[in-house]
C-alpha cells in the first residue's frame, strides 16, 4: 500500500510540476486516522497531506462534476468502483472529460470505520495492509471481517484511464452481491414488508445517500422542487421515506453502478444498496446483464427496449 501511495504522489508531483494539470483530486488524512476525506490539492507543497490507504473508501468521481467545470486540468485517482461512476458521468455529459487526467489505481477493499469501532478501535495510530489482511494499531484483521460491505462483493475491474498505477494485487470478492436480494425475494411478502418497514423507519432524511450518490447529480432534486408535486423536506408521514427511497432508486435505476456509497454513508446503517441491487438484478434477469459505467456509449436498460420484453404481469412468472 505504501508503494502505491508513493507512486501516486510521484505521479501527482510530476504532472503538477510539468503544468499538465493544475490540481489533484485525492484523499486527505483526518484527525482520527480513518476519517479520510476527499480533497483537492493545488500545489506540490500541499501534497504533504495527500494519502492513500485502507480508509480511502470515498468515491471521488462525483466531485469532478463541479471540479471539471473550473479552469485548469485536474488529476484524479480512481479506484475501480470510482471509475464506473466516472464513465457513467461521462456518458451523461456531467464531467468535462478534456479537463480531467485520470489515473486508475488498484484497490483491495477499504476498511469500514463502523466495523473498526465495533472492534474497539476509536482512532488509528498506524495501519498497514496486504491483499487479504489489514493491521490497525498492531491488531491484524482478515479483510472479510473489516472491509466495507460494498467491497466484499466487488468484482469491478480497472477500466481505461490516461494512466494506471497497479502492482497486480487484486482481491477476489468473498460474497455474491445478489445474495441478500435473493434472500429477501425468497421471503414471504409479510416478511419483506416487515424487513423494510423496520429498516426504512430509521431514515432521518439527512439526504447523505443522495448527496454522496454519483448518479444523483441533479441541479435540484425533485424532492426539493415544489413543481414536482412530491417535494418534501422531511417525512410528513411514514410512507414519505419509502417514497423517497423508491423514487431515488428508480431515478438511478439503469444508471447506478452499484458503487455502494449510499449504504457506506448512511448514518442509520440502512442497507440502501439492496434497493439498487434489486433493480440491477431484475434488469439482468429481464433484459440481459447490464453494468452501468462499464462503457460510455451503451444505451441504459430504461432508455432501451426490445419488442419481446416481458410484460409487467409476467415479471413474477405469470399472473
Amino acid at each position: 500500500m505504501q508503494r502505491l501511495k508513493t507512486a501516486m504522489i510521484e505521479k501527482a508531483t510530476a504532472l503538477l510540476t510539468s503544468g499538465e494539470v493544475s490540481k489533484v483530486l485525492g484523499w486527505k488524512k483526518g484527525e482520527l486516522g480513518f476519517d479520510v476525506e476527499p480533497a483537492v490539492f493545488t500545489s506540490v507543497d500541499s501534497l504533504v497531506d495527500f494519502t492513500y490507504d485502507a480508509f480511502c473508501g470515498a468515491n471521488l468521481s462525483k466531485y469532478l462534476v463541479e471540479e471539471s467545470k473550473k479552469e485548469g486540468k485536474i488529476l484524479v485517482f480512481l479506484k475501480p468502483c470510482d471509475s464506473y461512476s466516472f464513465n457513467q458521468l461521462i456518458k451523461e455529459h456531467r464531467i468535462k472529460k478534456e479537463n480531467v487526467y485520470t489515473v486508475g489505481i488498484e484497490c483491495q477493499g477499504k476498511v469500514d470505520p463502523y466495523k473498526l469501532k465495533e472492534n474497539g478501535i476509536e482512532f488509528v495510530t498506524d495501519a498497514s495492509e496486504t491483499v487479504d489482511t489489514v493491521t490497525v494499531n498492531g491488531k491484524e484483521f482478515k479483510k472479510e471481517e473489516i472491509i466495507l460491505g460494498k467491497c466484499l462483493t466487488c468484482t469491478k475491474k480497472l477500466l481505461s484511464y490516461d494512466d494506471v498505477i497497479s502492482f497486480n494485487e487484486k482481491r477476489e470478492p468473498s460474497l455474491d452481491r445478489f445474495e441478500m436480494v435473493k434472500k429477501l425475494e425468497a421471503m414471504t411478502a409479510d416478511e419483506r414488508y416487515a424487513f423494510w418497514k423496520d429498516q426504512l423507519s430509521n431514515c432521518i432524511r439527512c439526504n447523505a445517500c443522495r448527496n454522496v450518490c454519483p448518479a444523483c447529480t441533479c441541479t435540484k432534486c425533485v424532492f426539493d422542487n415544489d413543481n414536482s408535486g412530491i417535494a418534501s423536506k422531511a417525512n410528513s408521514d411514514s410512507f414519505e421515506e419509502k417514497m423517497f427511497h423508491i423514487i431515488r432508486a428508480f431515478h438511478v435505476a439503469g444508471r447506478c453502478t452499484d458503487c455502494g456509497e449510499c449504504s457506506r454513508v448512511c448514518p442509520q446503517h440502512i442497507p440502501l444498496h439492496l434497493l439498487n441491487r434489486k433493480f440491477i438484478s431484475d434488469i439482468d434477469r429481464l433484459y440481459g446483464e447490464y453494468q452501468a459505467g462499464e462503457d460510455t456509449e451503451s444505451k441504459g436498460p430504461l432508455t432501451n427496449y426490445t419488442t419481446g420484453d416481458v410484460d409487467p404481469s409476467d415479471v413474477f412468472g405469470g399472473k
Partner: protein
Amino acid sequence: MQKIGVFVCWCGSNIAATVDVKKVAEVLKAEPGVVISENYQYMCSENGQALIRNAIKEHGLTGIVVCSCSPRMHEATFRKTAESAGLNPYMVEIANIREQCSWIHKDIEEATEKAIILGRSAIAKLKLNAPLTSGESAVVKRALVIGGGIAGIQSALDIAEAGYEVDIVESAPTIGGNMAKLDKTFPTLDCAACILTPKMVDCAQNENIDIMTFSEIESVKGFVGNFKVQIRRKARFVDEKKCTGCGVCMQKCPSKKGKNEFNMGLNNRPAIYIPFAQAIPNVAIIDPEQCLKLKNGKCGLCAMQCQVNAIDYTQKDEIIEREYGAIVVATGYKPISLENFNEYGYDTYKDVVTSLELERLMNAAGPSDGHLVRPSDHKEPKVITFIQCVGSRDTSGCGKPYCSKICCMYTAKHAMLIREKYPNTEVHVFYIDVRTPGKNYDEFFRRAVEQYGVDYIKGMVGKVYEENGKLMVQGSDLINNEQVVIPSDLVVLAAAIEPNPSVRKIATMVTASIDTNNFLTEAHAKLRPVESPTAGIFLSGVCQGPKDIPETVSQASACAAKVVGLLSKDKLKCNACVSHSDEMLCTGCSVCANVCPYGAITYVDKEFRIGGGKTELRRVASVNEAVCQGCGACTVACPSGAMDLKGFSNKQIMAEVDAICKR
C-alpha cells in the same frame, strides 16, 4: 385569483337519466375558485355554447370545466367555444361523465358521486393549466398513396388534378389491383377493364403522378405535413426505363411453369412476364423463383432477345427516401384463405372455385378466353351452384365476423351473366340473406330472379361431396323446410374478403389505429370517415371496411379532398401539449433524447448566471416544438424533473390523483 366556470351537460337523457346533473352542478359550485356552475340539456348545441360564451364574458372566467361526454368527442368543440369568447382554448378541461360514468353505471347515487369526483378532478387540473399556444410547421406539398388499386388510383388522380405531386407505391408489378381482374361490374354490367384501364393510363400520363410498382414501404418517420418515407423498390431484373413492353421475351422464355397470379393461378405464365395486356407500367418482370438464369445461371434467352437491353440479371433492391405531407392508405383486400372450410371441398375438388376465380374464367382475357368451362375437364358446366357467406358473418372463429358486403351483388351478377350467355345452364344460389342496399341494387338482384330465373335457395350448405362425377351440394332450403342435394358441375364460393395482410405492418409504421379485423379505424365513423385518428393519414377503399367499387371510388375522392385540404396549407398548427425543459433544472444528461421517438430533443450549451456577476456554460435540453408530439416518454426518463409536458404536467396529474383519492 382564478375564476372557474363549471358546465354540466345533460346530454339529453344520456347523462341526466343516471347522473343527478343539478346536484353535480350544485356541489361543484362550492369548490374553491368556482364562481359559476350551470347545467344544460345539450352543452354542445349552439345554445349551450352560447351559455358558456356568455358566462366567460360576464364573469371574466379564467378557465372552464365541462362535465359532458368524452373529450375525444367534444374537447375540440369546447376549446373553440372558449376561444371565441376570448379564453385561451387550453383553459378548458372536460370531465367525462357520459362514457365513463352515466353509460356504465345504473345506480343514480353512485353515478352522481362519481361524476362529482370526476368534476373535482378536472377542476384541480384546470387550476394548474396555463394558456398554451401552438407552434407551426411547414407542409411538404406532396402526397403518398400506398396501394395502386382503384382506391389508390382514384385518390392519386384527384390529388394530382388539384395540382399536387403524388406517388403511388404498389407492391404488385402493375397497378390496377383486384378490379383489374374483374369481368363486369354491378349494377350496370359495364366491363371493368373498360372503365379501369383508362384511369390507369391517366395515372401513367399525369405529370404529377409518379408510379412505383413492385415496391414496398420500408419505414415511415415524421408527422403530419412532414413524413419521411423509405420505399423499397424491389428488383424486377428489367430496367423499367428501357423496357418497351414488346413481349418478345415472354414468348422466348423456356420456363413457363409460374402460376399466373393475375388469373388466380388458373393457368401458367413464363418466368419473365407482363402481368396482363394493359398493365401499367407495361414493363416485364422476372420471377426469380422460376428464371433459369437467376436460379442456376444457365439461359439468358430473354436478354439475347431484348432489342433495348432492358434485362438486368444483377439488379438489386433499391431503397429511396422521399418526403410527404400526407399519406393515403389504400391497401385493399384479398379473399380469405379457405382452409377452415373444407366442408365445401375447395381444396379437394378442382371444380369448386372462388368467385374471383370465376371472374377470370368468365373474362375474355382470362385463361379460357371468356368461355366458361370448369377447371377439371374444360367442359361447359350445366349446373352451377353458388354458395354465399363463405367465411363471412362467422363468429365461430373459422371466418370473419363481419358481412363482406360485396358478395350478394357480385353473385347476382355472376348468376345473371351466366344465364344470359348460357341460357341452358341451371344456376342455384344458396344464401342466408340477400343484402342489396344501394341505388338500383335490389332491382338488379330481382332481375336475376325474375328475368333470368336464377334459383335462390334460402339456407346454408352443409357439405359438398363428389358422387358419380357430380358435385353434390347438400344444404338447407329453409323456406320449404327441406334438405336439398343439388348435383352440380361447378360450385362457386363467395369467399369473405379481408384487409390485405400487409396493412398491419403499414398501420404500425404510420401509427394508425387498426381494429381486431385488421381494418383501419377511422377518426369518427360518421363525421371523419376517411381520416385515421393519426393526423396526416387518410383511408381510401377497403382497408377501412368492406366496400364495392362505387363506394370505394366515392371514398377515394373524399380522401383526396381531405389530402388536398391539408396540402393547400402552408403551415400547420402543431400540437400545443409539447414537452419543455426547465433549463434551471436540466443537467443535460441526454437520457430524454434517448427515449424520444421523434428526435425532437437536442442539446445546446447555454450561458447561465450563477451569481456574483459570473456566468457558466451549461449543456441543456431543448425541445423542437414542431416535432414533439407530446407522448411524455422524456418526462419520466428525466431524473431531475426538468422535462415536463404542457397540458399534462407532473403537477396537473398529481392534482388529479389528489382530487380522486380525497376521501
